């Protein structure tokens, strides 16, 4: 079996070990079509490892594994999810296998925030608008410009702005907490101004549909990976999007091998592959946004670097697995609710 030269010499032990394992069980928050290229690529290399995914909501991935881990039941060998608070917690209590991928040296610093916790992809949250309802001039280019436009013409935006509701949704909480953490009081002031015009949603589907029908004219911090494929569909011109020029939230998707996993060698091979140049390219082909620098930009829709180039590195808000997500959550939610109410 060919492995890159920078892999440790005893790597073949992992490969041999995987041969006697019973396949790989992944609990994830991704969909079948996101997985397909990655798994195909992986199987081309390690055809004896049967990969099975259980695709659930972010929270369920963890609830299910946590409840199963103490029993004799078959459970996940690898977890993938966007539940940032959980990853932060795992980072603290060390419930993930501390495996350092040989690919780490080729990855940015944020790729392994805690021992055993890796980042699979970095998915941007963008501004989406209804191109038929908002004229070119009206279209905000970022959070600040949205605040400006909305206060200037409240009737056009009243009740017609949507975003993830940070008070009701862990995804939204992680995103907005990171944003506010970086942008500080200025952003809070802006939010207080447009807060009453916002209708919070908890999932991408209704946001996109309602923006398309015109119920909302625009959304801020809408999951980019749900929008990008839609732009290419017939009629996609109804939607427009922009990476907010004053701060694009990049949501990290965590990945980790639980301690005591039944098939650790297969899991390690999979982590290494997913983080490799080839694997990251496949991640991109599956619709997610890879962050490894040597991914060819013409192979995938977006990469971390491409977005970074577009808006400037400073304007990237990395929504990672900060432990303050746990400790500060309640006060943040309270503050959020007040801001949404305009107070």
């Amino acid at each position: 079996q060919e492995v890159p030269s920078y892999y440790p010499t005893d790597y073949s032990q992992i490969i041999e070990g995987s041969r006697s394992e019973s396949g790989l069980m992944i609990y994830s928050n991704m969909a079948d079509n996101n997985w397909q290229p990655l798994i195909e690529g992986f199987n081309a290399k390690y055809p004896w490892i049967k990969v099975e995914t259980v695709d659930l909501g972010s929270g369920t991935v963890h609830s299910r594994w946590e409840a199963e881990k103490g029993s004799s039941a078959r459970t996940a060998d690898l977890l993938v999810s966007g539940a940032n608070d959980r990853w932060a917690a795992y980072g603290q209590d060390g419930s993930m296998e501390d495996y350092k991928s040989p690919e780490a040296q080729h990855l940015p610093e944020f790729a392994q925030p805690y021992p055993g916790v890796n980042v699979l992809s970095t998915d941007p949250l963008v501004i989406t608008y209804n191109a038929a309802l908002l004229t070119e001039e009206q279209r905000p280019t970022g959070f600040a410009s949205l605040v400006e436009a909305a206060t200037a013409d409240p009737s056009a935006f009243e009740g017609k702005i949507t975003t993830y509701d940070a008070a009701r949704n862990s995804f939204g909480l992680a995103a907005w907490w990171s944003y506010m953490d970086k942008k500080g009081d200025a952003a809070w002031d802006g939010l207080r101004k447009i807060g009453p015009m916002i209708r919070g949603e908890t999932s991408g589907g209704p946001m996109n549909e309602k923006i398309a029908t015109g119920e909302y004219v625009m959304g801020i911090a809408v999951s980019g990976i749900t929008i990008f494929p839609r732009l290419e569909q017939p009629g996609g011109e109804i939607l427009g999007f922009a990476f907010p020029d004053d701060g694009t939230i990049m949501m990290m998707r965590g990945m980790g091998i639980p301690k005591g996993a039944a098939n650790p060698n297969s899991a390690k091979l999979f982590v290494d592959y997913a983080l490799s140049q080839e694997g990251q390219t496949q991640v991109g082909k599956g619709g997610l946004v890879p962050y490894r620098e040597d991914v060819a930009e013409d192979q995938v829709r977006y990469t971390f670097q491409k977005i970074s180039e577009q808006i400037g590195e400073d304007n990237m808000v990395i929504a990672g697995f900060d432990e303050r997500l746990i400790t500060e959550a309640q006060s943040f939610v309270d503050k959020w609710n007040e801001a949404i109410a305009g107070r």
Partner: protein
Amino acid sequence: MTDISHTGSTGLGIDRSRAIYWGVAALTTVLVIGPIAPILFQAFLDKPLYDDSAALTVGNFARLFSEPGMIGIFFNTLYFGGLTMVVAQVFGVIMAVLVGRTNLPGRQWLGEIFIWPLFVSNLVIAFGWFTMYGPSGFVTLAAKTYLGGAPWNLYTVSGMGIVAGLSQAPLTYLMCLAAVTKADPLLEDAARSTGAGPFRALLSVTIPMIRPAIIYSAVLNFVVGIEMLAIPLLFGGPSGIQTVTTFLYDAGINAAVRPEYGLVGAAAVILLMLVAFLVWLQGYLMKSSGRFVSVRGKASRPSTLELGAWRWPAFLFVFSFVFLTIISIFGGIFLRSAVSFLTPLIPFWKVLTAANFELVLSSASYVRSIINSVVVATVGAAIGTCLILVIALVSRRSDFRYSRALEYVALFPRALPGIIAGLGFFYAVIWLPGADLIRGTVAVLILAFMIRYIPVGFGAIAPALAQVGEELDRGARISGADWWTTVTRIIVPILKPALFSCYALLFIHFFKEYVTAAFLYQPGSEIIGTTMLQLVAQGDNGPVSALATIQVIITAAFVILARRVMGAKIYG
């Protein structure tokens, strides 16, 4: 009394019937308690059940009640549940009577369409409603253009209640339909000959006679309203309206930080108490059940009520109702499955695409989920119908000492919101010894769905059972049949329409269920519901609608076919 005198009779006492009573009681209890016990236990733990350091506490209840705005949340919930029930009952009963009893033109196909809302999950129904009646829905815009305004607002508790009620009306309809077809037409004849017009006869005689079915479905719909998540979440969320379930979902399960299972458990305990009360109330309202018997030993002829001059006005009313609340909604869903964007801003023919179906049908695991769903629904509904039938017979038609208790136990699963129930099954399957055998197979899904929907099936069978006069049982007993032979050979054939309803209801519910499955399925045992959940995550309702369309087509085909095969002849 000496004990010797007893041995003689107890020796006789262990007969087949008694073995069945005890067997079914034990089975039901295990099946129901299995998933409920962990949740109840959880209610009194300060940490998740699986956490070894969890300690006993009553703090969960304190937290639940000290939550700010809890009064408002409770009020919303009761109002929502109540409205759901009222709307469902009014439309369901009217429809059942018109279809089952009158010569309304086109009643066959109107009846078939009427049950569509049951075929798909509330998530999809809600989506259909806002594409049509949302603030920028098609009908809303049309109303604004042609009528100068649309007097409805879905994003209120009332709006939610009406949508939920209309999507539950088919449940009432199916339960009452079984009862209505068995009401003795002679009694209507009697009313008409004393001077009642056809509608008056229906109102004063037929409807009161199907009271068991009405009471039963009312209680069920109220509970469904209270535990319903999707509609309050989708419609209430953006405008900040909360019900108990959305509160639990936001604060308990989908919490921004760490789920609070203790809170969830505490709320489940309260819901269980509520259901216990409702079941008691139901029993109270059904006192002296002899009042509802309409299948007597004196046979009378099946017949329909002539509406006369009312035929066409009634048709117009029913048709516009069906059109506005079902056909248009499903039209929206079907249309959505065939376009890339569904918006009034672009003519739909410009955005027609087959991509949504391609996406669904090109994935091996998605296709497998459809096949699995068909298996779970057909097989599961059959097993479920049998189990529920036996439970109903033992609890309503036997001299089993604990018959009433059995009924209570069987009805409890309904109290748990699907998501909580899913969690309960999940714990049960993990921790019950031996359950590992079926874990992750479709068998466990069948089992879980079955238990969860016992109350729904029971509601289809029990009221119909109440209509069958005891002299028919008695006639069989005296002819030499023991209890089991009597019910299987005499009662069950008479109950055929109700059994069909039960089977159809279970099939439909199993086919669309998702929340309960989320914790239980594994690769290989995915079902349509879990696939839909994944597709929802992509933020594109196109594939979701495509799947919903497939769901409707399969279910409708199945229901029509099954009716042909099973329900063709009621009297022989």
